């Protein structure tokens, strides 16, 4: 058998050209028993780490390189033979990336020559062989002597013998060597259709129009050595040379072993020594009354482990960032596997006191895998940029960059693009993409296709679906990761190509987080979290108005009143546990201590829900079911959670302890779940897992549940340490809400957009807790919401919340600040706001619309009339943006000089005010829209939210009505739809079963004002109305407004888990 290595192959990171995943290409090469494979994507190294990982798994020799395409179209695959040459290749690509727009790479042939040292070049001949090509091959051969090859491909174009003869001659004349290749675009000819589809997507045409854009045949696939030997029988040396190249290349990605930057370690100290010194010093600060013994023991143990694994630099690097944040008073909280250790608590990386939670550190730093620990740090979302800039300045842009995120084809996009190429009308593709729920998991049920009004027997549709499924998970382009920083000691652009990000002045590298993980490079995630901003602002308000200084770590711990509040599901606005699902869990779980919150956070997640672990846990907790363990080994794993696996690492531990996985396999399983990359491999894992557990004597049913849970964990799993970090923020935000609801309200409004609730519900909740909330006003409001002195007789002496101008839609912050700055002792009338602050008239009009002139005696309509008359009528509608010229020309009293005849305007009704309040500040303090319909509703027998809490109504048939706040169809709920309604007394939770939904589809999906008739289902404090009939009352809302403004939908856009008709969660 002939030996042969295929050295010109690409992956789907040659965007819209390559039609196979890296693991498919590499896997097929191994299957065909090739001596090696070279992966060279078009001007990028983005796919090589995946190929590297796949090659290790498949056990085949891999050459890592890129297919260089110069500005004028000269192509050559380039393989660095050593680390230095690899650095030159990276720099060439970086140069090409940085000088042009995102997604392109531009360099000249001359620049390519400059990087030639140490490279293997395989020139790829065009069909015609112009003299320029020949000259360039000769130039390459001079620059890379004995390392320049000419690719010969058996093309099946009819005249191969002549062609190969010509190439052989050309090679000889130019000093290059002929090399047999297939120039593989895909691993197997079955991918020819997908390759054609990709071509059409790239060329923006349909298959019918494509013509010669497509290749004539399907020969661009990997071929076995024997076939190559047959095709190149006249040129045997061209085959043998592939092995020479394998021999010449010594470079492997394994050489990029990570070198930690030096900055965090002061000169003259060892990393471990410095870390220990720091830890003990800071421990004194954390425990001013003396370090408790068991904490001391913990620290000692952890430091020993860190020393053993040589991770001190990693912890110091994270500490360095956190220290910067603390200096700048930016709130932060670490999470991730290693974040909640005693060392991290001392270093300030986490505020979770190791005395409050018992997390086994070594469980998360796997000595066996030798991977760096994983710590992500959340920062206040409004101030994260400062942290990013700090990293850039500390490590310079040459050594710090953000990872990329690979944007993959998702079902909707895949169907749309394939449909377009197949020539389907947009109508049909839209219909098809409506039923993509579950695509990628096998066949789409015929019934679903029919439901979308399409013919399931239509072969074009089936072909479209099939191709879309193949396209699924293909990379589309690279985007910037939200905050994953890579830091190196040497130049980063000699390790990986750097490219321009979409954001100005940002660059990112071509590799994503998984690539960095796989190579074991140092990464630190600098993330943004809205709740940290909110907590920071609340802490500042409390400090300013009540003189009480707090930090995350010093908020009084284990306050029973806080837990009592949470047990009542009184958690609007609180971090994580404010969703409807969490709210109905709180009263059942009855959290009474910090660890209960950790469980609360972890349990309402797709993993435990899909694994059907929630109810067993609740039953055991309430003592209805005995706590037992499937086996003694699992007792160690499941002890803390009453024998029910709830955390991600417990599921992984089960795969090791019970199903016999190696830790490496368990980790691969976790990764396989997290991405689309290994669709298809999940099945083999499943079999291995369940068989493994059965072999070890576990029940099949339990094994299957465990596996479903792992599947659910996939992207959304919470490890225990992560849940603990979140639980801390749950506790802190709850504590603030319980003791300073006014500060909490102002802070969360000032941190929008964030969280689950819109300002209207947050304000409503605050008012229900006795907070005095005041309307925005030009004489009292800042940009932010503020706390004001309480009304004289109010008791207790709790501040009132003054809504800020930030709530006014379309009001720019700059204008608001100008109004505040020029306010002095206050504005006496409307024109003086304009003349003194110098803001555009459009801003004054926004303020008028928001009804912010009450303090000068004008309601919104009067103010609007006055605004339009500003400047004595000089300003016409078209000149609204004009700014006044204060002092000389226009004086505040100009209006009086030209006495205007008075105009009588109709009185604004309360209903009109409420509608305008909602459409201008998204809430109203004057009334709730439903109040206006109450009489009518009562006449129809509709009861209020307050009334439906009556215990006597349990199981009874009722009518309720309200404005729709949320519609959700959780993926875990098997088609059930949850609707939250709001009336003037509170909220009402509605459950719509699929059958009822089918009958009332339109109403359920579109009604804004909804009446529901159904039965009340009650479990303690959790109440649902099970809908039987739904009536759309939206039309009535029209009567409220003035015909201009309509009550806007109260559904908050982009709310986590919310479900709008357009959301892909549907169907």
């Amino acid at each position, binding site marked *: 058998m002939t030996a042969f290595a295929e050295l010109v192959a690409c992956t789907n990171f040659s965007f819209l050209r390559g039609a196979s995943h890296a693991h498919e290409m590499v896997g097929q090469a191994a299957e065909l028993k090739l001596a090696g494979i070279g992966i060279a994507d078009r001007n990028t190294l983005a796919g090589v780490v995946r190929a590297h990982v796949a090659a290790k798994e498949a056990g085949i020799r891999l050459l890592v390189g890129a297919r260089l395409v110069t500005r004028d179209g000269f192509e050559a695959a380039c393989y660095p033979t050593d680390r230095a040459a690899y650095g030159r290749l990276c720099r060439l690509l970086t140069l090409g990336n940085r000088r042009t727009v995102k997604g392109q790479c531009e360099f000249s042939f001359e620049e390519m020559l400059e990087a030639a040292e140490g490279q293997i070049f395989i020139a790829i001949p065009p*069909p015609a062989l112009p003299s320029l090509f020949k000259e360039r091959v000769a130039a390459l051969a001079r620059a890379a002597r004995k390392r320049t090859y000419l690719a010969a491909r058996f093309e099946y174009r009819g005249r191969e013998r002549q062609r190969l003869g010509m190439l052989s001659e050309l090679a000889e004349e130019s000093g290059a060597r002929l090399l047999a290749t297939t120039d593989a675009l895909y691993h197997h000819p079955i991918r020819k259709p997908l390759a054609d589809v990709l071509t059409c997507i790239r060329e923006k045409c349909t298959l019918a129009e494509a013509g010669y854009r497509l290749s004539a*045949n399907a020969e661009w696939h990997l071929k076995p050595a024997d076939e190559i030997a047959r095709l190149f029988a006249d040129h045997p040396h061209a085959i043998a040379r592939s092995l020479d190249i394998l021999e010449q290349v010594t470079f492997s990605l394994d050489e990029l072993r990570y070198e930690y930057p030096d900055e965090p370690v002061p000169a003259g100290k060892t990393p471990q020594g410095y870390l220990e010194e720091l830890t003990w010093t800071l421990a004194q600060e954390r425990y001013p009354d003396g370090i408790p013994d068991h904490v001391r023991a913990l620290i000692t143990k952890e430091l020993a482990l860190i020393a053993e694994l040589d991770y001190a630099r990693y912890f110091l690097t994270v500490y360095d960032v956190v220290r910067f944040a603390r200096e700048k008073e930016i709130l932060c909280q670490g999470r991730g596997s290693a974040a909640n250790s005693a060392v991290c608590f001392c270093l300030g990386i986490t505020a979770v006191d190791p005395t409050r939670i018992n997390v086994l550190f070594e469980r998360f730093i796997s000595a066996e895998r030798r991977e760096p620990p994983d710590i992500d740090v959340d920062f206040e979302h409004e101030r994260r940029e400062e942290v990013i800039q700090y990293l850039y300045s500390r490590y310079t842009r040459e050594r710090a960059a953000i990872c990329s995120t690979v944007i993959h084809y998702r079902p909707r996009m895949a169907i749309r693009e394939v449909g377009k190429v197949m020539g389907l009308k947009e109508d049909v593709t839209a219909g098809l993409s409506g039923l993509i729920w579950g695509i990628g998991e096998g066949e789409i049920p015929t019934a679903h296709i029919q439901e979308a009004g399409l013919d399931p027997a239509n072969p074009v549709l089936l072909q479209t679906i099939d191709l879309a499924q193949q396209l699924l998970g293909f990379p589309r382009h690279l985007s910037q990761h939200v905050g994953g920083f890579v830091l190196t000691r040497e130049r980063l652009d000699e390790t990986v190509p750097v490219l321009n990000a979409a954001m100005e002045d940002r660059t990112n590298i071509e590799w994503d987080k998984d690539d960095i993980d796989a190579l074991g490079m140092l990464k630190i995630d600098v993330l943004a979290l809205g709740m940290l901003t909110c907590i920071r602002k609340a802490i500042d308000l409390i400090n300013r108005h009540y003189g009480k200084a707090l930090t995350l770590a010093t908020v009084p711990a284990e306050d029973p009143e806080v837990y009592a509040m949470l047990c009542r599901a009184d958690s609007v606005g609180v971090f994580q546990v404010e969703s409807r699902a969490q709210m109905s869990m709180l009263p059942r779980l009855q959290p009474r201590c910090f660890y209960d919150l950790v469980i609360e956070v972890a349990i309402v997640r797709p993993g435990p829900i899909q694994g059907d672990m929630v109810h067993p846990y609740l039953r055991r907790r309430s003592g209805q079911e005995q706590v037992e363990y499937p086996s003694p080994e699992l007792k160690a794993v499941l002890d803390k959670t009453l024998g029910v696996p709830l955390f991600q690492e417990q599921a992984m531990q089960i795969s090791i302890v019970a199903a016999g996985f190696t830790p490496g396999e368990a980790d691969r399983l976790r990764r396989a779940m997290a991405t689309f990359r290994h669709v298809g491999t999940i099945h083999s894992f499943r079999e291995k897992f369940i068989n493994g557990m059965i072999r070890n004597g576990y029940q099949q049913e339990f094994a299957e549940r465990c596996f479903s849970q792992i599947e659910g964990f996939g992207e959304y799993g919470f490890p225990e340490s992560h849940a603990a970090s979140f639980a801390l923020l749950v506790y802190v935000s709850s504590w603030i809400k319980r003791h300073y609801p006014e500060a909490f309200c102002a802070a969360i409004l000032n941190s929008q957009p964030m969280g689950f609730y819109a300002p209207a519900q947050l304000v409503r909740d605050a008012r229900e807790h006795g907070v005095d909330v005041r309307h925005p006003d030009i004489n009292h409001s800042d940009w932010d919401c503020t706390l004001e002195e309480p009304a004289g007789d109010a008791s207790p002496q709790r501040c009132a919340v003054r809504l800020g101008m930030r709530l006014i839609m379309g009001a720019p912050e700059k204008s608001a600040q100008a109004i505040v700055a020029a306010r002095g002792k206050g504005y006496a009338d409307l024109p003086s706001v304009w003349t003194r602050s110098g803001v555009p008239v459009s801003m004054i009009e926004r303020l008028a619309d928001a009804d912010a002139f009450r303090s000068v005696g004008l309601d919104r309509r009067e103010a609007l009339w006055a605004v339009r008359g500003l400047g004595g009528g000089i300003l016409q509608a078209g000149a609204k943006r004009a700014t006044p010229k204060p002092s000389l020309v226009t004086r505040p009293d100009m209006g009086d000089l030209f006495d205007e005849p008075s105009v009588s305007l109709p009185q*604004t009704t309360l209903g009109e005010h409420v509608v305008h309040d909602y459409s201008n500040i998204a809430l109203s303090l004057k009334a709730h829209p439903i109040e206006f319909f109450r009489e009518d509703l009562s006449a129809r027998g509709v009861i209020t939210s307050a009334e439906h809490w009556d215990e006597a109504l349990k199981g009874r048939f009722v009518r309720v009505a309200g404005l729709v706040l949320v519609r959700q169809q959780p993926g875990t709920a098997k088609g059930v739809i949850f609707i939250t309604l709001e009336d003037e007394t509170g909220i009402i939770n509605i459950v719509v079963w699929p059958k009822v939904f089918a009958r009332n589809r339109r109403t359920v999906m579109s009604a804004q004002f909804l009446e529901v008739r159904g039965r009340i289902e009650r479990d303690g404090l959790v109440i649902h109305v099970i809908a039987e009939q739904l009536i759309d009352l939206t039309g009535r809302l029209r009567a409220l407004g003035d015909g201009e403004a309509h009550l806007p939908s109260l559904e908050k856009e982009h709310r986590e888990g919310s479900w709008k008709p357009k959301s892909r969660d549907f169907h």
Partner: protein
Amino acid sequence: MGDLLSNARSKVLDLQCRDADPAADRKALEKLALWAMRYSPTVAVWDEISGADGFFIEVEGSAHLFGGEACLLRNLQQRLQTFGLFPRLAVAGTAGASWAMARFGAAESAIVENGAERSAIESLPVDSLRLTQGARSLLRRLGLRRVSQVIDQPRAPFASRFDAEYLRKLDQALGRQCEPLVPIVPAPLYHAQTQFLEPILSADHVLIAARHLLDRLCSQLADDAVGARVLRLMLFQVDGDVKSLELGLAAASRDPEHMARLIGLRLERLAGAFDTEFGFEAAALHALTVEPFAARQSSLGMGEAGASAESLAGLIDRLQQRLGPGAVRQLHPAMSHVPERAEVAGAVALQELPKEKMSAEMEENLPSAPRPLLLLPRPEAAEVMALIPDGPPRRFRWRGVMHQVTAAEGPERITPQWWERSGELERDYYLVEDSEGRRFWLFRHGHYAADTPPGWFVHGLFP
């Protein structure tokens, strides 16, 4: 309304949807407006602000032809209804008031007496004033909903708060200010029109009617001592279509006989295309250009251009005239790898057709092996001896004759257009030369597999 299509689709599963086509709407409206010229030469289509779904007809001078405004409205309404439309009509002294009544009036058709515009529109919403979006929105926000609430307000404060259009539109509706209409077809200088009791069908009858109109028109021309240079005859079909003939006269004329002759000649020439299937129910004659009649007549002896030389074009024209369209065809190249798809017989184009632009990559995929001069209409089966897996034929029998292959090139491999699901297999083409020097293009359909041997076909011949 105002919903995203995808939202609407998820609410109504079997939603039917069509793209909005404002251009087509506009065209249909203009066609209808042309038709309405049977009532008056001045018809003005509404603009965007007015709603782009209607038009004004200036009936002041022509209502009497239809027996007064009420009869005209009835007539118009009935006819529009026969087109399947649901018209809302109003007659008023001002364009603004008629618009307001048509849009917002209670009745499907209304007549506002002159001077009664104010009382007619007072109770209507302010939207009936044809105001700009900005003005409408401001009025609503000020709580001013009815025309009566704004009609007597002091003017100065409103002038300073609204765009200039606001007071103008208000004044125009009330007749305080005139409103010029922009007709769809420029109003002719002189015109005559007539209705037929029975739709007329033949060209002869058209000519008689035209003659009748010419008499009336020419007397108008005579009054002003001018003659017509350009005439337009408009014929209004029962189905709403309008046929329009324009004819230029070499010299000004007001001789009805002469002009009738010209019209007759034109009608004769149009004979075939002049489809009177539905019949005409009205006609109008316009004089578009006139000159003082004293102008000197020029000589009629303009020599015709010499007959052009016989050209290919002429030949093709005559062949096509004689043999029918489509009898003469030309092969055009088409972009396909499948040889029988790579040429398409189509209409003759004497000029070089603009070639589809080819990118460098398309050129790379262009077939490089030669194509036969004659491609058989259908591949013909042949018995072939060849080496597996993809050797060229050694010898083959085709149409009963055995050919010994002495030289061969290939294979050229062509994959079928998979998306057509034709059951086609991959083909390997070979160019072979037999011992007599004849050259053939053969292909193997499919590959040698275990059970069924692939078929061989002759697909073309080289010279």
